[in-house]
């Protein structure tokens, strides 16, 4: 049972980290739309505010999910909770 408690604690920590990153790029930066527009950081030449809404945040979400999935798999393995017969 304690193994399960530890597993869940680590899983929860990972969730909080994932949600924190998610919060920054889905909500946090958009408090500063005007500042992003005025910023001198211009990815590929686009205004930063425009770039984040078109590609930036969207791409970060894709990477974030794969990173999250990888970390969660490691946690599951560490405690011997990963599945036997995997579909992959």
């Amino acid at each position, binding site marked *: 049972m304690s193994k*399960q408690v530890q*597993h*869940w604690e680590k*899983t929860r920590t990972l*969730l909080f980290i*994932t*949600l924190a990153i*998610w919060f920054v*790029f*889905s*909500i946090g930066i*958009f*408090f*500063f*739309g*005007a500042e*992003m*527009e005025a910023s001198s950081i*211009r990815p*590929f*030449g*686009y*205004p930063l*505010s*425009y770039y984040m*809404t*078109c*590609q930036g*945040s*969207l*791409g970060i*979400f*894709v990477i*974030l*999910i*794969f990173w*999250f*999935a990888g970390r*969660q*798999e490691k946690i*599951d393995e560490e*405690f*011997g*909770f*990963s*599945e*036997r*017969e*995997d*579909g*992959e």
Partner: protein
Amino acid sequence: MIKGKFIDNLPKVYGIYTGGFLVFIILMAIAEQAGMTAKTIGICFVSFTVAIYAIIGYLSRTLQVDAYYVAGRQVPTVFNGMATAADWMSGASFVAMAGGIYFKGYGYMALLVGWTGGYVLVASLLAPYLRKFGCYTVPDFVGTRYGGNAARLCAVLVLTVASFTYVTAQINATGTIASVALDIPFGIAVYVGLASILLCSMLGGMRAVTWTQVAQYIVLIIAYLLPVFWISNKMGAGIFPHLMLADEVARIAELEGQFGFVKNSAADLATVPKGLAGITKAHSSVNATPWAFISLAVCMMAGTASLPHVMMRYFTTPSVKSARRSVGWSLFFIFLLYSSAPMLATLSKLSLMDPTLPTGIIGKSIADVQAIDWYQNWNQANLMFISDFNGNGTLELNEFFMGGKAVVLATPEIAGLPYVISGLVAAGGMAAAMSTADGLVLAIANALSHDLYYKIIDPKAETAKRLVVARVLLVIIGFAGATIAALEIQGILGSVIWAFDFAMSGLFFPLVLGVWWKRANGPGAVAGMLLGLASGTAYLIWVRTGGAGFWGITQLTFGIVGSLVSLVAMVVVSLMTAAPDSATQKMVDEVRVPSGKTVLGKQH
């Protein structure tokens, strides 16, 4: 076709399919050169692709419960990602999104951020745990986790309200495209669209929908990306538009400054046909307050995590691990289209606005523009309109009006691409609308047949009878949706956004807390679902009937009110009533680890 063998051969089967589709496009291009009319090409594209989906639907027919409800839980990670992307990207995403960006700019982009960011919530909070649960439908999870028919019934209610709001919009979109491409009246086209949707899902349930959705994704992504790349290259804007349109975005801002946004008088605007809009907002600069942007994004994200037709796609993967990865693949495939929509909007706007381009119309004489072929076509289709308000004989920026759909549908023609591309775009739009409608109709019918009929009304029903009931309900719901769609009550995009708010109001916290808060119990969940849905709906009605609203929450973001009420009600009622019994607590513990058997049996 043997099942095991089919699954092993998926990459080959869909590889051949994709190759075949590309050959078909080339054949159509040759036919166009040989003199085939635009109308015939449109008919060929739509009927050929729909026929393929119907064949896949027929080949995937099944008499097994777990194949019908969850595709036998053997859909590989990447293919499930494609199917989810098609399930997700509706007619609204395909046809209306680029138009929304074109007209509303930054403020509208909140939808893109919301509709992608929601997948982070799906992956981290819900999908793997619901997969481990082993349920057939979302109410199945709610009913088992919280115990009792009341919770199950409430979940069915919220699911039906949200999905039904959404599905009428999708059947409407299939009807619109079918009526344009096949040249039949909208009232009939809606039922043609419905028939194609049912062909895909009726015989094989989730299994058939899965394999047609993969096929539909391939068609829709080719149909979206090919014109974007082609136009960009043709205009000399860049080989890879996504990374190379910065100059074009800057040029639009420059032209906007040059032309200025002149406000039209109300009398002038009254002459513009309904549904058309002019360019009144800056293309790339920040034009919305942080709260307006964030509140809309939050609603779309929480709604994404609560919409049952998306969630049930992750019940079909072979394992918890692959459910998690599958969410990543889904978002990747969605990203391909979403990141292209702003580029299409940019290319479309610049090609119309820039007087130095051969396609530019602003600044030309009104008579010249009225003589252009594509202007006449789209004017006739009620998607374009110009008028010389100031009487100077020249077309100004504020004198040009376009429908939102025209950005996707008309841009290839404006940019001078061959008609075969317009046919392809019609097939893509049809695929997008059909795949979403399929998923939604199936989600509603499955919830009613499995949760309402089998679990509550007749738990002793035999497999054959259950599947008959499921199919009858599918047809009834399809017809109900089509009948309402034929009435054309609301626009496509408005009702899509409402669906997210409804789902968020009633289901977000009951689902999330079901996994993450052991103390959550049945009475709490029932209170959360009912009060959440009721308060969200009440707020919507209040604002729609002239109410002032509060906190800047509009009819597009009423889910914030609903979900907050839902959260408070659920926590308060849960804490006031007895804690869940030890069996339920143990069940939650089991859901939290990927290994071991699913909570519900393979067949239930």
